[in-house]
């Protein structure tokens, strides 16, 4: 079976490094991007199944990035992983059709569970 391709978007470098390491061990193909624009570039170059994205980032925040990702032809699933959870961003994220909303700090099991759920769900385009 082909490894699920995950794009991790987070400006917190240590966190991004650790999570990608943990996910790779668990059989995911992981790429990282430290900002929204950078993530959009990666998506242009390579196919990605799931985007795990932080909300509060310099340059372009998570919700805005998600909005832009939706304009791509082949839309990946999206999971929000934020250190600033709030009801408002949760509702906004749901409206944008994200597959999961996780808040930091969280266990790696929570992340993999969310990834599984996202991958097994219907394609993002139908959401």
């Amino acid at each position, binding site marked *: 079976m082909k490894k699920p391709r995950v794009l991790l978007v987070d400006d*917190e470098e*240590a*966190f991004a490094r*650790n*999570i990608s*390491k*943990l996910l790779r*061990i668990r059989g995911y193909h992981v790429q990282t991007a430290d900002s929204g624009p950078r993530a959009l570039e990666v998506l242009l170059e390579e196919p990605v199944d799931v985007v795990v994205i932080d909300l*509060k*980032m*310099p*340059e*372009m*925040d998570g919700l805005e990035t998600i909005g832009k990702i939706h304009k791509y032809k082949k839309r990946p699933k999206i999971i929000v992983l934020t*250190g*600033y959870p709030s009801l408002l961003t949760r509702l906004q994220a749901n409206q944008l059709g994200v597959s999961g909303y996780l*808040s*930091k*700090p*969280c*266990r*790696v099991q929570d992340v993999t569970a969310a990834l599984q759920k996202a991958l097994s769900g219907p394609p993002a385009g139908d959401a």
Partner: protein
Amino acid sequence: MKKKTPVDNAAGYHAPQDQREKYYSRLFRRFILLTLACSIVPLLAVGWGINLHYTNFARERMTNSLQTQIGHHKKIIELFLQEHSSKLQLIAQTHSKEFLSQPQNLQEIFDMINRDYWSIRDLGLIDSNGQHLAYIGPYDLMDKNYSKTFWFKEVMDQGIYISDMFMGFRKVPHFVIAVVRKGSGEPWILRATIDTDSFRSLVENVKIGKTGEVYLVNREGVFQTTSRFGGTIMSPSETPIALSHDDIRIRVEASHKNGNNRKVPRQIVCQTWLKDPQWMLVVKQDYAEAFYEANHANLSTLIFLHLAAVTILVVIVFISRHMIRVIQRRDHEADHLNQQLMQTGKLAAIGELSAGVAHEINNPLAIILTERQLLLDSENSGGYASSDFQDQFHDAMEQIDIQVQRCKRITHNLLRFSRRTQSVVETVDLNAFIQEVVDLVEREALASGIKFFTKFDEALPPILSDPSQLQQVFLNMITNSIDAHDGNAYGRVEIQTRSVPDRSSVRITIADSGSGIDPKHLDKIFDPFFTTKPVGKGTGLGLSICYSIIQRLGGEISVQSDVGQGTEIMMTLPIRPPDEVLEDLARPHRNTGGAS
């Protein structure tokens, strides 16, 4: 467009107490002056005007009535004299000398004249030589010769003559009316002596008040009747004799001393000339009595007017006092409210900051958690001995330490902030202090694309101030400068500290590259509740509270802004605030920073 707002708050939220008192007394004086100008001045002006008008009117009426009276009296006297002249003429024309020289005939005529009222004293028939032909009267004058008397010559010349008062042969004051009959023969004279008492009573018995007097004087100024106060008949009077005139003249004689050293008060004098003889009829009355009624009415009006004015004044003073008291109470309430607002703003700032800090801690915690997981994974895959595990172990431990330190810094900042909610005056190193505030907000700002640049003056002296209030100000100002970039993808905030050349104060400048402030809003940005943020986004209290705090700390604050370019806020703080500022800060009821 550049606009500078030197902030000189007219309302003076926290003006010192003595300044307030001065303001209140100034306000009080202004109230009184204004109401005086609007009520008492017009009242008195109108009152006095009407009074003056009425007085003149009353005087005119009084004078007119006096004129009418004296005119009437003059006519009576003239009629009396004319009547007697006519009677004598009639008798002389209708009777012969022979008839009249019979004493019984003359007596009959004498009685006839005196039948209605006693008016002539005696009656005599005198021939052209001045010798009595017949005489009826109480005196023995038959042998007197009148050819040398002044009246004899006059009557022989003029045909009829009324004399002035004279003593004559009988040595009592009297006057005569004489007519001459010039016929074919020798001319003869019919002479009557007017009864002095009846004439005097005719003239004098006009009672004009208590002080009024009526008298006659001849052309030489000699009394022809006795005046009530001036002098007796035949004595010289002090009345100035004017040229004879037909009309009635009125003048006011000032108070003076008369010949008997008696004080004569101010008098109103009315005079007119009789036609024949040329006597002047004089009516005098004390001015005070003549105008008593008018003056009395005047006085009552004026008393009433001034009483009204005094009443209004008293009422104005009371009302103004009351209003000042109301204003004082309102100001007091406003102060109280302002302090409550500051407290509210403070609490809001704490709440916002706490939420930010709580979120901030999530990131390091997330990293710590992933480090733990990495260690567990490593341990599962190879055991403690493997070099992979050793590497991971050291990396993880390093990261855990870094992240825990990060958490510590965040929580310490929070603790420091909450400790500073108790207002104390201490020395503050502004550079380090501002850096702390920047640290608190930097990450959040970075998320909005805003970078901080600090340019600290290394030689900046520490200042004596209240750190908790300063923190509130800086936090507010810096948050505002971040919010000013709403809608911009990138931005910068420059914070600069430097000491002012005279070394007694320091200046902090916070310049942002945000959207700037509309010039029409520039004057209002320090007003409470003024905000341009959408409803629910801002209370409009932040800057007004900052303004109050800076002012209370003895500093100044000014704003300079260009729309589309950015805003620069400049704060000046004294290195050592004046003693009264320190005392004010130390006072518990002023201590709005005190957490309850």
